[in-house]
């Protein structure tokens, strides 16, 4: 079992009526990886996750979890998930819900550890309908990991959280992923993918448009920013420097978007324009925007 992959999509397609939500999705996730599924709203993230969990059957192609069907993997207690737009069961306490979920799995997490990890110790006797949005998300997270699943799936888990809750949430998630489990999460917060994932899969229009480590994706777009003080002789000609793709003036500084920061900086030095140099690598967000914009333009063309 150890050498099978955790997740395998093979040419999976799904339509809602005439609308293609997911087209020919091919994606393999080896055991132990933490993967972020990144994409704009309507990109096909939730549909892909629903197919992954066996909640939707692909129109064509197939989905395998640990070398078997999603239904069998669920039945074996290997899957835990936090789904979007799920409300918690009314008239039950946090402790009762978690005791129930733990009882379903062959090797559940001890209750104390679970409550501590999800920061729920104080709320154990609270009824689920009385929780705030952030508290509910923590309970859903706890319910997802209560059975110590080999694959943890989180569909936009931080959508309803404030900044501090998000920070605590990802710390708890990384602790769980650190125990060697496979985690797949979807988000539209780029920085979450950058900070918490080993691998980022960008999807738009139902297709994968980029797949790699956060660093590799940043590099794939390859745009760095080179900033210097505005030259005394003005900015004319800067756009003709090697590797420069765009020039932007902000206050008394000029920022050059560059495909090759080394070549641009060298040319600036030769021209005697190096004053207050600042070089910044591409942010994942820039790369993501570049990728998704290209893909949308491609689709419109």
């Amino acid at each position, binding site marked *: 079992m150890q050498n099978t992959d955790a997740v395998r999509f093979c040419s999976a397609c799904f339509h809602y009526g005439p609308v293609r939500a997911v087209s020919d999705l091919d994606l393999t996730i080896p055991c132990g990886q933490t993967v972020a599924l990144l994409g704009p709203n309507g990109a096909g993230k*939730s*549909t892909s996750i*629903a197919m992954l*969990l*066996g*909640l*939707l*059957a692909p129109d064509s192609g197939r989905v395998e979890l640990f070398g078997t069907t999603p239904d069998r993997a*669920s*039945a*074996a*207690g290997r*899957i*835990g*998930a936090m*789904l979007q*737009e*799920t*409300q*918690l*069961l*009314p*008239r*039950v306490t946090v402790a*009762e*819900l978690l*005791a*129930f*979920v733990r*009882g*379903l*799995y*062959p090797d559940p997490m001890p209750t104390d550890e679970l409550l501590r990890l999800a920061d729920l110790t104080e709320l154990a006797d609270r009824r689920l309908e009385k929780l705030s949005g952030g508290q509910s998300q923590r309970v859903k997270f706890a*319910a997802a990991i209560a*059975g110590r699943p080999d694959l943890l799936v989180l569909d936009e888990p931080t959508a309803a959280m404030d900044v501090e809750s998000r920070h605590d949430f990802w710390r708890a998630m990384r602790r769980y992923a650190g125990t060697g489990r496979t985690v797949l999460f979807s988000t539209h917060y780029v920085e979450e993918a950058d900070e918490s994932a080993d691998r980022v899969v960008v999807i738009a229009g139902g297709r994968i448009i980029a797949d790699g480590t956060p660093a590799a994706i940043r590099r794939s777009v390859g745009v760095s920013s080179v900033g210097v003080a505005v030259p005394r002789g003005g900015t004319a000609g800067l756009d003709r420097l090697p590797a420069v793709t765009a020039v932007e003036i902000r206050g008394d500084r000029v920022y050059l978007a560059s495909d090759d920061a080394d070549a641009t900086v060298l040319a600036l030095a030769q021209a005697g324009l190096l004053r207050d140099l600042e070089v910044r690598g591409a942010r994942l967000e820039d790369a993501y925007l570049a990728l998704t914009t290209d893909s949308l333009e491609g689709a419109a063309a």
Partner: protein
Amino acid sequence: MTGYLTLEIRRLLRSPGYLMGALAMPLVMYLVITNLYGGSGPERHQTAIYLMVSMAGFGAIGAALTNGMSVVADRSNGWLRQLRITPLDARRVVIARGLTGMLAGLPGILAVCGLGGAVNGVSMPLTHWVAVIGLLWLGVAPFALLGLAVGYLVSVPAAQPVTMLLNISLSILGGLWMPATAFPHTLRTISHLVPTFGYANISRQIAFDAAPHLTDVAVLAGWLVVFTGLAVLAYRRAGRRAV
């Protein structure tokens, strides 16, 4: 499965409004109808027994069917999808839910029988009481499963009216509101095939010190099989569509 059953029973006991509602209707109807039929002496006693079984059954069936409405809520709030990705399989979900529905039917049976004994002067040997109450309770199983099937199958806004329609039509056709012997011939034949008829008739036979008819038992058991299958299929389908 016991974990799921415990969870659902807790939720049931914490919905006093639903349980009270399940009690009120048959109690009021029982009191009103026995006084309408009236009569005196042994005839009055027979009517009281007959109607006690009918109304206890009517209350139990209503509560068991209505229990299906709680799975409609599970569907719309996403809990059903969450359950589907746990190791809990469809059969065990449906059985636990069915047992919860049966439990919801129990207060109505006990209340109407209590009222029958205390207010309407129904007297039977203790063994008959136990058998009547026990069989009314066990016999509610097919209706609990039918309620679930509706809850899992029918669209969310339609589930409530469909449940109510089933409750009323099954109660009338099965002779719970008026004896099926008063029906015209064709309707009487149909009535015998409706699960409510056999359900009440089994307990009625015992209450009148006679053996239950095997055909009634067979018809009720047949419906139990049909509704169980339907509920399991409906659950699987609902889990798949609820995205």
